[in-house]
């Protein structure tokens, strides 16, 4: 079975999905990712789906679940590079991926994550004063 590689980039985990996801692969990714978040103490998860051409309701729900699991583990999830056709399909399926942040490409996604994570040290500093 194919496994999707999870790359660590600073305090962010980068997942680039380059294959058409099977249900089993998606479930494995979900498990691997939650383990890696705990192991690395990552604060952000970036999922690049620019190569994904076909989605179904299961994959759509998986993205939501990953985001929800990550949030419980205190990591923000950003889904980047969704193709127009995929976006239209998800909307037609009635999945709006509530709670998942999105960005046009990896660069903008990283910027978004940096902005989301950056605010926290300031808050701590504020409390220390």
């Amino acid at each position: 079975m194919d496994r999707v590689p999870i790359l660590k980039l600073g305090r962010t985990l980068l997942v680039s999905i380059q294959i058409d996801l099977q249900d089993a692969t998606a479930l494995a990714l979900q498990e691997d990712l939650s383990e890696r978040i705990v192991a690395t103490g990552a604060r952000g998860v970036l999922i690049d789906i620019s190569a994904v051409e076909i989605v179904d309701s299961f994959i759509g729900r998986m993205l939501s679940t990953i985001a929800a699991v990550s949030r419980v583990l205190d990591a923000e999830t950003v889904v980047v590079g969704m193709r127009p056709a995929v976006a239209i399909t998800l909307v037609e399926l009635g999945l709006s991926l509530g709670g998942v942040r999105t960005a046009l490409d990896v660069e903008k996604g990283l910027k978004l994550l940096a902005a989301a994570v950056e605010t926290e040290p300031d808050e701590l500093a504020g409390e220390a004063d």
Partner: protein
Amino acid sequence: MAEFGSEHLSETIDLRQADILARWVEAVAASSRGRITHSELTAELTPILEAIVAALGSGGRRTDGAGFAEVRALLAELSRSRARQGFSPTETATSVFALKQSILDSGASSTSTERLVEYLNLSRLLDELALFTFETYAEARDRIISQQAEEMLELSTPVVKLWQGIVAVPLVGTLDSARTQVVTEKLLQTLVDTGSEHAIIDITGVPAVDTQVAQHLLKTVVAARLMGADCIISGIRPQIAQTIVALGIEFGDIATKATLADALVLALRKSGVTRLDAAEAQ
């Protein structure tokens, strides 16, 4: 049934072809009310008459047979050009019907019973050809209409770039599912192509907003969000705002603005561009 084969009549028509053609051109020209010149008509009708004579000469009795293939091709061309030039269906069909009268007038058929039967047979053939012309005409018109609808669809959905990272779609006309789909696809593709993070959907030109149109708009906005872009809906006229509230449509956390200018200011602020007022700039 060979006794009323078309040989005799077709021979006579062949002999008087020039006379018949002249009469035919005259009759069609009269019905076209000066939109086509005599010389144009002669150029158009000569090959048709020749093809009919040839088809009759070869013993063709059925207009859908191989003998009439050339006649059909010529008539199809004629009716297509008539449809494009905006002739009415009657005027187009008359082009063929006029041939009957021309043959009668030219004296090709005498009053003998045998000739009368021949003439009736020919008349039936020409009726079929006229019907065929009419059908091709309708087909051509349908094609023109669907082509125009397609062009309208393309024309009516431009996506314009307003600023670095900001695109706008000015919607004009009624929104239906087919059009919304084109708009959505085009907008999303433009977001990818230009790397824009902000999109403004301007509905100033949309005459009415009902629940269905609102549903379409919401879908477009959600799809854009899934791709990582932010959508603002602008150009909401007072009556439309009242309709939206009366219908109980919820736009949720989607930003809405009264004018495109307000939406642009909001988009600029969101993308981190600071605005200098004219006074400050000086």
